[in-house]
């Protein structure tokens, strides 16, 4: 009989603390499945951020070192430079990567550090209670944009995949979503590709995951899935933004 479901080896058997409908648990599981399938469990060092996923180390059964807020890419740089045989990934939210850690992210990417970033974009600061994130959509209500994000006063949502794709050190960037079985399958492929790019030593790789936050969006899980399709992907279109491996084939 063919196994259709298996608990990933690199996912600890601990119940997730995430809210119902949250995308983190799906992103965790996908990453663990990839780590298993690529046989990386004994080589991986993961870097979780402050935020909802600070407890990622309770779920990933790999070596993990917590980073200060936004500093994941710098910590990953230190680990990878000290121990190049490791496979290093950061797991970062939008406030972490696109707000307080923008400089670390951009420069690690630009240096072409051989690290992989899993970037969870849910358009809010989750753990602190739903404040405006750098990725909050225009008009979106959060606890710090109670009148809806007005770009005149509060700026525009920042598109990190597009920005990072411009940098020469970047090897692979794809934006995916975890709001449907089809998208989840695509997300897994993207994560696997990002790790492969790191193994090949091609440079910086990142998978941006549009991820539902029903609690702070004040939506049902199903509605939050729909909202990603209907609203979020208009501002953050899904797709591959950079892939140097494709270029090599085209040459």
């Amino acid at each position, binding site marked *: 009989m063919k196994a259709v479901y298996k608990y990933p080896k690199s996912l600890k058997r601990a119940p997730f603390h995430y809210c119902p409908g949250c995308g983190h648990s799906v992103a965790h599981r996908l990453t663990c499945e990839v780590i298993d399938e690529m046989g990386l*469990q*004994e*080589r*991986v*060092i993961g870097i979780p951020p*402050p935020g909802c996923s*600070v407890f990622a*180390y309770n779920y*990933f*059964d*790999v*070596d*993990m*070192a*917590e*980073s*200060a807020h936004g*500093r994941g890419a*710098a*910590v*990953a*740089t*230190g*680990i*990878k*430079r*000290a*121990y190049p*045989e*490791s*496979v290093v990934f950061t797991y970062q939210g939008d406030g972490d990567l696109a707000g307080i850690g923008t*400089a*670390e992210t*951009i*420069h690690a990417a630009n*240096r072409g550090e051989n690290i992989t970033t899993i970037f969870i974009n849910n358009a809010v600061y989750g753990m602190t209670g739903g404040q405006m994130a750098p990725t909050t959509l225009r008009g979106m209500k959060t606890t710090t944009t109670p009148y809806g994000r007005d770009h005149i006063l509060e700026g525009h949502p920042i598109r990190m995949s597009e920005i990072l794709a411009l940098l020469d050190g970047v090897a692979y960037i794809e934006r995916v979503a975890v709001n449907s079985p089809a998208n989840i399958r695509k997300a897994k492929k993207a994560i696997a590709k990002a790790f492969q790019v790191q193994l090949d030593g091609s440079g910086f790789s990142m998978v941006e995951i549009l991820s539902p936050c029903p609690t702070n969006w004040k939506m049902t899980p199903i509605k939050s899935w729909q909202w990603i399709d209907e609203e979020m992907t208009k501002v953050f279109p899904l797709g591959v933004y950079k892939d140097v491996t494709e270029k090599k084939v085209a040459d």
Partner: protein
Amino acid sequence: MTKVLMDGNSAIAEAAIRAGCQCYFGYPITPQNELTEYMALNLSRRKGCAFVQAESEVAAINMVYGASVAGARAMTSSSSPGISLKQEGISYLAACELPAVIVNMQRGGPGLGSISAAQSDYFQATRGGGHGDYRTIVLGPSSVQELADMTMRAFDLADKYKIPVIILGDGVLGQMKEPVEFKREAPTVLAVREGSLRGAKGRPSRIIKTFTSNPSELEEINWSLFRRYTLIKKEETTFETFLTEDARLVVVAFGIAARIAKGAIKNLRAEGLKVGLMRPITLWPFPDEPLKEMAKTIKQYLVFEMNMGQMLEDVQLALAGQGEVAFYGRPGGVIPNPSEVARVIARLYYQKGLK
């Protein structure tokens, strides 16, 4: 062993390489750039080593954190404004019990201040510096030779006690050239620290973290840190005394100020004034017991610092009213010469009727 003429910043870098420093992460700031540049020249292409000119001081210290997580001897260096930026990372290093060496070639402050030598980061260095209850070992060198020796000692202490170690130098020490002897050869094999993260091969996965939602757990982490600090205080406190046996007045000074004070004291001794020097070498742990012991026989102290009186508070705490403490300080990057300091010492000496 032969002596070479070298500036202080370069001497630290050379000593670090010989101490087995595998990773250096830095960001340009005067007056410590020779250190970063020496590492770029001599460490960046060294087998198994890494050098990154980071995008910021914040990034540099977090790279140090990463390298230390992976078990490497790692360091960064900067000067006062840059050290302020590193405090976030130093707090995390302390919390995670990760060794690291951080060099602060102090310059005048506050703010952007000046690029001239100062000692105004004493509080920041000796009180932890970042958020949370923690300490770092702080070494106060006063010559290029000491910079080299202390850099080697700093890496050893950091590993031994799993703690960040700060070398609190200043712009003069960094820039001036003196003969220096390096007492170790660079290791041929770089050691990997026990308990580091190198992938969970043949062992359960490991976590290096600071966050906990359980205050009792965090309280115990704090207590365990402070149990180790007590041990460090007992084992590692170091200081120098100079002509104190018969002294009626003792100058307490650290780093370059102690060097200046020593010159003043030599001149005053030639004139027959019974003055001596007490120089804390570890600024944390501060040598308060030796000072207390000294206060049994010597009652007059003059604290001299290139700031507005920071170590002064440690001297006052140590003496606890047993002696009289005066203070002379020049802040902002002004470097007094020995004759100026001699005048201040002599005035106090005669004023207090110590002749």
